[in-house]
């Protein structure tokens, strides 16, 4: 079954054709260059860019896969969570395609996609990575920070999540406070590497005392702000890499600590990681060390693009949903759900 999947949840217009777990083609038009100038996703640009690019992206995907629309058997589309007006563009297109081709429509939760992203295979079926449920899922991005119990296919439980800012958002905001642009994560990471991740300022690790699996990153902003305010311009320039590094350490160590707590609580030390922040090498190093000490494994998305928003992961989920018969009839109405929770998509 060939599934054409569309994701327009944020700033990438993305289309993929999937067969089972294999990606036959994946094309995305990233708006990051457009948005970098503005310091974040710009709704009008996002919407307009999605509208202008979506047909081209779909056509190019079909060409790359050497397939015609007649050879597509289902349409998968992200219906949340994400930016409402951006989601609408993808949903409209998906409904239209499903209706003209009279093929089923498969709505997919974007976060399910991230959870499955480490199981995506290339056209040749690599990497093989068999499913060995249950897994602990750690999803970290600009909009999300969640610990998930991934019990079986399409079956999830939320163990913990951020109560305020997402980890990626905290990194972006810290970068902006330090005078850098969007996206902030890579800048912070690069600066941290130059001082070997020295934790000079030891910013507070919020919610470390609480025994639950919730995260909180908004207090960190204030700590950084106060640290910077007390410095002269020269001191600040001198301290820049240390500030970045200490901030990144505070974020990453919070993630590690809660993940470890989740391992102890559930007894599961098989981790899957997804979302934009999972590309961060510091996080990867710390997670590898963590699972090693618990005799587990950690799986990251096998190709770089799979860390970020993409439609390949949406297509994989759509495949599994289709197998379970979780499809809508051609041209069905789908509402975008900007605050869609994984719980709403569990079987």
């Amino acid at each position: 079954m060939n599934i054409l999947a569309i994701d327009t949840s944020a700033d990438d217009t993305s289309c993929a054709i999937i067969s089972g777990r294999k990606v036959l083609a994946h094309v995305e038009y990233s708006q990051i260059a457009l948005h970098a100038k503005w310091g974040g996703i710009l709704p009008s640009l996002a919407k307009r860019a999605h509208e202008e690019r979506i047909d081209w992206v779909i056509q190019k995907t079909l060409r790359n896969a050497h397939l015609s629309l007649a050879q597509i058997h289902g349409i998968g589309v992200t219906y949340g969570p994400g930016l409402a007006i951006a989601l609408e563009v993808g949903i409209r297109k998906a409904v239209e395609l499903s209706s003209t081709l009279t093929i089923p429509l498969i709505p997919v939760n974007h976060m399910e996609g991230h959870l499955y992203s480490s199981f995506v295979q290339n056209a040749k079926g690599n990497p093989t990575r068999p499913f060995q449920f249950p897994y602990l899922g750690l999803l970290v991005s600009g909009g999300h920070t969640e610990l998930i119990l991934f019990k079986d296919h399409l079956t999830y439980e939320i163990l913990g999540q951020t109560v305020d800012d997402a980890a990626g958002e905290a990194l972006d905001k810290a970068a902006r406070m330090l005078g850098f642009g969007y996206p902030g994560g890579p800048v912070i990471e690069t600066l941290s590497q130059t001082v070997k991740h020295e934790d000079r300022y030891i910013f507070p690790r919020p919610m470390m005392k609480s025994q639950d699996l919730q995260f909180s990153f908004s207090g960190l902003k204030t700590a950084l702000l106060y640290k910077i305010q007390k410095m002269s311009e020269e001191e600040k320039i001198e301290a820049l890499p240390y500030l970045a590094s200490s901030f990144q350490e505070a974020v990453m160590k919070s993630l590690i600590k809660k993940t470890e707590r989740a391992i102890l609580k559930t007894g599961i030390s098989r981790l899957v990681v997804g979302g934009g922040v999972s590309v961060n090498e510091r996080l990867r190093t710390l997670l590898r060390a963590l699972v090693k000490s618990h005799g587990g494994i950690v799986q990251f998305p096998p190709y770089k693009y799979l860390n970020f928003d993409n439609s390949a992961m949406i297509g994989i989920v759509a495949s599994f949903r289709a197998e379970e018969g979780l499809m809508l009839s051609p041209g069905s109405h789908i509402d975008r759900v900007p605050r869609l929770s994984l719980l709403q998509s569990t079987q």
Partner: protein
Amino acid sequence: MRIRLSQDGTNLKDVVSKTQEVLSSGGLVVFPSDTVYGLLVDAKQEEAVSKLIAFKNRPIGKAISVFVSSIEELASHAFITSNQKPLLESLLPGPFTVILNSRHTVSNLLESETGTLGFRIPDYEPVRLVSKSYRNPITATSANLGGRHPHYSIESLLNQLPKEKQAMIDLIVDAGKLPRNKPSTVLDMTQDSLQIVRKGDIITSSKNEYRSPSPKETRKLGAFLLRQSEKKAKGKPIVFLMTGELGTGKTEMSRGIAEVLGIPQVVSPTFVVSYEYEIPHSASNRLNNTYKQFVHADLYNIMESDEMEHIGLDQYLDKPVIMVIEWGERMGDFIHSLQEKTHVVLVTFSHVNENERIIRVHHSL
């Protein structure tokens, strides 16, 4: 006697009339409130007040506040100047006790030595109903012995009381465990400047200015401001425009507002600009019947005001919506649409130090 006030308020009417009956015959009632459990007696019946004072082991001459149902009723028991009136109207009903010069219409055992009296108008339906249809003011002191901590459950209160004290109580209205709100903030308005006598959850330093020592208080202030705004909005959509630096508590206050509406998981919308939530229906929360959607927007990433046209916030303005817009100063001309169609509340946050914030509030710009 002990009666249970059901969660959904179905037996509220019976509880209210029973309470009034006991008060009328000079009885002592333990009753829930928006803060802690309180002790109610008829404030005009000298004997009942004496019983209350004896119960609490309270030294004579130490004032005890009273519940009234409205500012009009308050004015018949205390002197209110034209300067004080706007402040009273903005704070009440709410978790405040205001000290004013008494007109000596209630038992003088309740007044301070200087003839002042404390008043409460709580934002809590059961007390409001008891007080509204009762001919006299009712005492509003916490249900604990002098010098001991207040109680959030009947069990906790009874554990503290010796048998002879328990026997003095004529009626207990049990509403289960109350949320852990601090006792009210006590404001002395009889001096030249506003004096804070006791700090509760919501601390105000002058009209439209509040101080928050921590994120928790900022959330509670959000809840208070929503109720305050509801009165002024008269059914129009309510829009909170929040401005202030990163990390001053805008998202915390948004969470406090959402919690009142029964929406538990509100996170920062920075990344996607705006999130919308359905407000769950609730029989006991008036707000939930008036308003159907909660929209939480964040303009942090908006650099040019004409972007506002594309976010789609205008689509909500004709609907029963409660909206929070963080970084509201970035909206440009959109403010005119808001002013025309909604009740706008401008909330400005600033740092005092690492923890404390000053929060200024202006209604209907």
